[in-house]
């Protein structure tokens, strides 16, 4: 490509190098790679010819690696030229890369502990491509240089975006929002105190962490030679069985407590000093105790916000907010990332408004799904219950195993099934505030989706055989977010059809209309849309697929 050839020339003249410490970090990286084979090889083989060869082999391998790293550093050039970021890398395979700044989606400055101590940072630039790797990784730059470059990249991209014709901007709505929010030194939208972060860790439902801690501890207890636990247990067995049970219970509680502590410590390490600001159409986050993350996400890329409330957090009036973005972002799989790890329930509306501008989440009134949803859930649970208990019933029938104890279990479980179904039903709901679709579901972890009309990609109504018999439908709202979609399960058939029509009109209106506030208006209609309304009765509903 001619532009690439030109780029190479421009780099030859004015290209900049990475920070000299790049070499140091490369050396440390190589040493780290070599140390394990060296140790394992050395100790594993014991004394002898081969063992003595190992360090020599390692050195033989390490030297070319170090030379390669040095050559890479010596030849690496980068340059910010006009509205392009130019990169040249590679020793044998030369690579010239031109990244138009208009395409830049995400710029992150990342600092590990070692990098922080030495005053350098890694700069990652991501474009709209869905590749897993960031398009440009400048590792490492001086921290001042990295910050300046990030500011420059974002500023130039913004200038480029506003220079383009507004009509060509598919997301005019967000530009408006951004301008409204943009003011010098915008106060952060959210800032977490140490107490908040501790709270986030303490209320995180991380069963995996607990289990891991448990397993680790058991391993540890096993390794103790004639350990305290064993001695105590022996003593207890001698005295009475009850003591053993008590000891076991205490141990379990201790394990859980430790898991909880680990979870809290994890949250502090990850989210220490969390601040989030929205400025110039960009959401900027900064957080971390050891590795400091500094990321910015263009608001335009935000497809949906998810409010997650676990049982515990709901009870404490807390929630966590996730954003779903188009494509991936560095270090994040599936396009979902924490927007605010922990927030008070009453702040959620304000936080959502910080991203989506006009969305009034607090005022949204949720309509429930059809009451028959509860019946379907009871049936479903019952089916599971029967499948799980069937072997016992069969065993009893064949007189393999006496089953006198079954009746009490059934007596306890059946009402519980009904209670679970009721809870599910009560937590499910949908709302259509102007310009947005909201869907909520879940008992143990209640999730509320907030999807702007303008981000709707396809709409989907689905009815399984069982749903059709009850006259129920599932509405799925698809966006460009990676992986998960908002859905409302078990709406009345007629409501699902009505929502499908209404959302079609809204989604279409949301794009060409310059003003996001008008998104819900029907082009020629004078009737107001009917948001937050319970299922409309008495509408003739032809079966799906047979229009």
């Amino acid at each position, binding site marked *: 490509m001619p532009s690439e050839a030109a780029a190479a020339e421009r780099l030859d003249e004015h290209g900049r190098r990475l920070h000299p410490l790049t070499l140091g970090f490369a050396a440390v990286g190589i040493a780290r790679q070599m140390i394990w084979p060296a140790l394992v090889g050395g100790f594993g083989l014991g004394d002898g010819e081969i063992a003595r060869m190992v360090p020599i082999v390692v050195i033989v391998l390490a030297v070319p690696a170090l030379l390669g790293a040095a050559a890479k550093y010596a030849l690496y050039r980068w340059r910010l030229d006009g509205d392009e970021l130019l990169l040249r890398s590679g020793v044998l395979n030369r690579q010239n890369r031109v990244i138009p700044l208009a395409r830049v989606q995400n710029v992150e400055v990342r600092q590990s502990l070692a990098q922080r101590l030495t005053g350098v940072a890694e700069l990652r630039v991501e474009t709209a491509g869905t590749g897993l790797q960031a398009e440009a990784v400048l590792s490492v730059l001086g921290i001042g240089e990295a910050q300046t470059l990030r500011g420059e990249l974002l500023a130039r991209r913004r200038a480029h975006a506003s220079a383009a014709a507004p009509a060509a901007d598919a997301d005019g709505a967000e530009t408006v929002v951004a301008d409204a929010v943009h003011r010098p030194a915008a106060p952060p939208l959210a800032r977490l105190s140490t107490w908040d972060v501790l709270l986030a860790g303490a209320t995180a439902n991380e069963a995996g962490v607990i289990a891991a801690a448990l397993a680790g501890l058991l391993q540890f207890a096993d390794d103790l030679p004639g350990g305290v636990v064993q001695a105590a247990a022996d003593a207890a067995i001698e005295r009475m069985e009850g003591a053993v049970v008590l000891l076991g219970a205490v141990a379990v509680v201790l394990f859980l407590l430790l898991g909880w502590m680990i979870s809290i410590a994890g949250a502090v390490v990850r989210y220490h000093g969390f601040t989030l600001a929205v400025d110039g159409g960009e959401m900027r986050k900064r957080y971390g105790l050891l590795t400091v993350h500094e990321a910015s996400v263009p608001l*335009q890329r935000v497809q949906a916000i998810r409010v997650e409330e676990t049982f515990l957090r709901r009870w404490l009036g807390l929630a966590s907010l996730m954003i779903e973005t188009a494509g991936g972002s560095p270090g994040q799989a599936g396009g979902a990332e924490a927007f605010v790890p922990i927030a008070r329930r009453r702040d959620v509306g304000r936080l959502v408004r910080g991203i989506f501008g006009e969305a009034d989440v607090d005022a949204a009134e949720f309509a429930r799904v059809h009451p028959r949803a509860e019946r379907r859930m009871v049936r479903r649970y019952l089916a599971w219950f029967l499948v799980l208990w069937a072997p016992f019933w069969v065993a009893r029938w064949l007189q393999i195993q006496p089953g006198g104890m079954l009746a009490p279990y059934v007596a306890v479980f059946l009402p519980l099934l009904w209670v679970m179904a009721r809870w599910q039903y009560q937590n499910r709901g949908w709302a259509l505030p102007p310009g947005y679709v909201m869907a909520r579901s879940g008992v143990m972890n209640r999730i509320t989706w907030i999807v702007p009309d303008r981000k709707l990609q396809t709409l989907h109504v689905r009815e*399984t055989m069982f749903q059709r018999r009850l006259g129920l439908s599932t509405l799925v709202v698809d966006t460009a977010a990676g992986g998960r979609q908002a859905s409302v399960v078990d709406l009345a058939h007629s409501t699902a059809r009505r929502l499908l029509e209404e959302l079609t009109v809204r989604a279409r209106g949301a794009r060409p209309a310059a003003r996001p506030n008008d998104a819900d208006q029907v082009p020629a209609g004078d009737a107001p849309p009917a948001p937050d309304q319970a299922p409309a009765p008495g509408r003739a509903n032809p079966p799906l697929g047979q229009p």
Partner: protein
Amino acid sequence: MSLLDEVQAPPRQASVHRLDPRTVTLWRLTSALWWTFWTLSMLIPWAVWDWPLWLMAPIAALGVAWTAYVPAAQYRHFTWQVREVDVRVMHGWLTRHVTVVLHSRIQHVDTRQGPIERALGLAGVVIYTAGTVGAMVGIPGLAEREAEALRDRLAHLSGTDDAL
């Protein structure tokens, strides 16, 4: 005029299309091939572990029943329409689906043709959006010309704006 009436007003009530009738033949052939494959695959346990050969019979019977009924049922339930603002695809024999793709969200449109489809003179249209689950919406089994015309029409309707 209510919102619903407005949406369903006559000018927008575009005609509902079925697939080309030859699609049933296409699906029957595909189904027959699969079931033949499964039936014949029972020869392996017969040869290796000496399983009874009659095990092929129930599989073959199921295959015949499936091939006779399911493709026709699926065909009956598959309809599509191109409306003023969107494309709708309705399908599903046991689980019914209605998928709505707005013209403005279409990224690009393909036609697809497998070997059996080519022999029958059929082609399918696939609509791509930036979405996740609905990222690919397919209308299989159209007459070749019809598929090409539909593809061109949808590509034209989709316009040029960035649908992200």
